């Protein structure tokens, strides 16, 4: 229903949005060519090409160990945050009573409180708990930050879920647990999966809390990158982030395929 003299303004709009798209993607994608530079510089465009920075990534323990730690933490956070977040979302959606509003707000608070504030607080407390510079410190802190995303994703799924389906299952002889397992869980699985992915990415990308929690024996990839950025010209970051891009892209595509194939039937 948009004919008439729209077309010129429409062209303008599309053009403008194209520029916004470039602005969004440019800084993300610029690291790809930079990662193949032959010089120890971030000159753009690069003058020669090599794969030395990828080599460096896999031979320098600072890089690959931090990457490994980030993956391990990310996976643990994905599991922990998904389980806890799903539990919370289920409780929030099935519960009755005045406690739900505040509880929901509290669950989402880590998303709202400015990162640096959470970071300082967690740092101070974790220092006393002996949780800095260690796997579990990262896992706990990141889980706190990832929890809201899982709660939001799973809650959205639960809200979209027709409650009558559960009631129907009851009427057909399924008790609470059976109905949850056979009806609710499969139907909110995409939400849970999305939540898990968000949790993993949140942890994998987290820097401000990690900045405080990191130490010589436990440094996550973003912190390794930050230190590298502030300490040295080292195109290894470009290599690292190119691989990051590829890995995340792979996960996204897998998730996409899963959802599409789910929807198809």
């Amino acid at each position, binding site marked *: 229903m948009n004919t008439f*003299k729209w077309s010129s303004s429409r062209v303008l*709009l*599309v053009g*403008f*949005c194209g520029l916004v*798209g470039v*602005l*969004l993607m440019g*800084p*993300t*994608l*610029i*690291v790809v060519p930079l990662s193949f530079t032959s010089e120890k510089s*971030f000159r*753009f*465009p690069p003058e020669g090409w090599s794969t030395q920075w990828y080599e460096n990534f896999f031979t320098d323990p600072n890089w690959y160990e931090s990457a490994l730690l980030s993956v391990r933490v990310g996976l643990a956070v994905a599991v922990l945050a998904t389980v*806890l977040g799903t*539990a*919370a979302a289920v*409780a929030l959606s*099935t*519960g009755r009573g005045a406690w739900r509003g505040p509880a929901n707000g*509290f*669950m989402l*608070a*880590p998303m*709202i*409180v*400015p*990162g*640096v*504030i*959470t970071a*300082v*607080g967690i*740092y*101070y*407390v974790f220092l006393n708990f002996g949780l800095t510079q260690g796997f579990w410190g990262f896992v*706990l*802190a990141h*889980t*706190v930050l990832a*929890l809201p995303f899982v709660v939001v994703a799973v809650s959205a799924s639960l809200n979209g879920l027709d409650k009558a389906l559960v009631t129907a299952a009851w009427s057909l002889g399924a008790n*609470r647990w059976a109905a*949850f397992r056979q009806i609710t869980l499969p139907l909110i699985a995409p939400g849970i999966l999305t939540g898990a992915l968000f949790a993993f990415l949140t942890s994998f*990308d987290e*820097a*401000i809390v990690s900045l405080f929690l990191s130490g010589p024996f436990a440094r996550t990839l*973003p912190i390794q*990158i*930050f230190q590298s*950025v502030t300490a040295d010209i080292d195109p290894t*970051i*470009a290599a*690292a*982030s190119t691989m*990051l*891009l590829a890995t*995340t*892209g792979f996960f996204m595509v897998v998730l996409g395929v899963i959802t599409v194939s789910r929807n198809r039937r």
Partner: protein
Amino acid sequence: MSVSVTATDESPDAQTARGRPSIVRRLSRRPTTLLIWLPLLLLAVCFAYPLLQMFRLSFTDFVGSTSGVFGNYLWFLGTDTQMTILRRTFAVAGWVTLMCLILGFPYAYLMTIVGPRMRLLMVGVVLLPFWSNLVVRTFAWVILLRDSGPVQSLLHAIGIDDLRLLGNTVGVTIGATQVLLPFLILPLYAALSGIDRSLLTAAHSLGARPAVAFVKVYLPLAVPGILAGTSIVFILTLGFYFTPALLGSPRNSLVAQQIVTQVSELLAFGRGSAIAFVVLIITFVVLGLVGLVTRRYRRSFETGLDL
């Protein structure tokens, strides 16, 4: 088919259930409610407790000549430098929010009117930045914006010299805008797609030109979505550390940098906490105001959106 109603088998259990106090009974009827406790516990220990500790520290931990219960707050509010930083932070947050809105609104709007395939592509573009690391993306701006970088070369080519893009709030605004744009576009898109576009058609049929219909009908309905998106961006900017740290300069520092400096360089937990709580309070005030405005605005009509 052998089943029949087994009321008799069930009644003892049901009877005891009825006899129990109501809270226990309620829980037993909604056992899923119990699931909230573990996540709540984690948040209490690893989130609320740290914040409380900071709150305590802001009243008890002092460095230098500061003292008195409110010493840290008085110091923060009474130091010119700190107030300059606070004002600057708000200015930057305001700019970033404005930039995000200017860039994000047309984008989100376009998303609501293109076909599903194109929309998927546009969502992909918005989400792409999340695939790479925040620090890397911010650093990419250093590469792009520095004097020897491509953007400056471009500017030189068209005759603009001496425009400093790095080490000041311009750089921070550019970087933060790009980083935060998705946080505006996504909720705004959700809100905009909830607006019934047939209202525009209705307005046309009533004699409104497209531009008038857009301004008089569409924009007012988009206000809650705009408020939701912009308040998120504004609040996130207040807490940004890496972007100003990499693209800005200590001479143009924002509160987040100042908090880190206080805590991490001067080990002034009390002062850092005091700054943090002032920011936190401002955050809540902003959220509260936005919520209030939205609610009042929306009380008159329902669009089905949610903040």
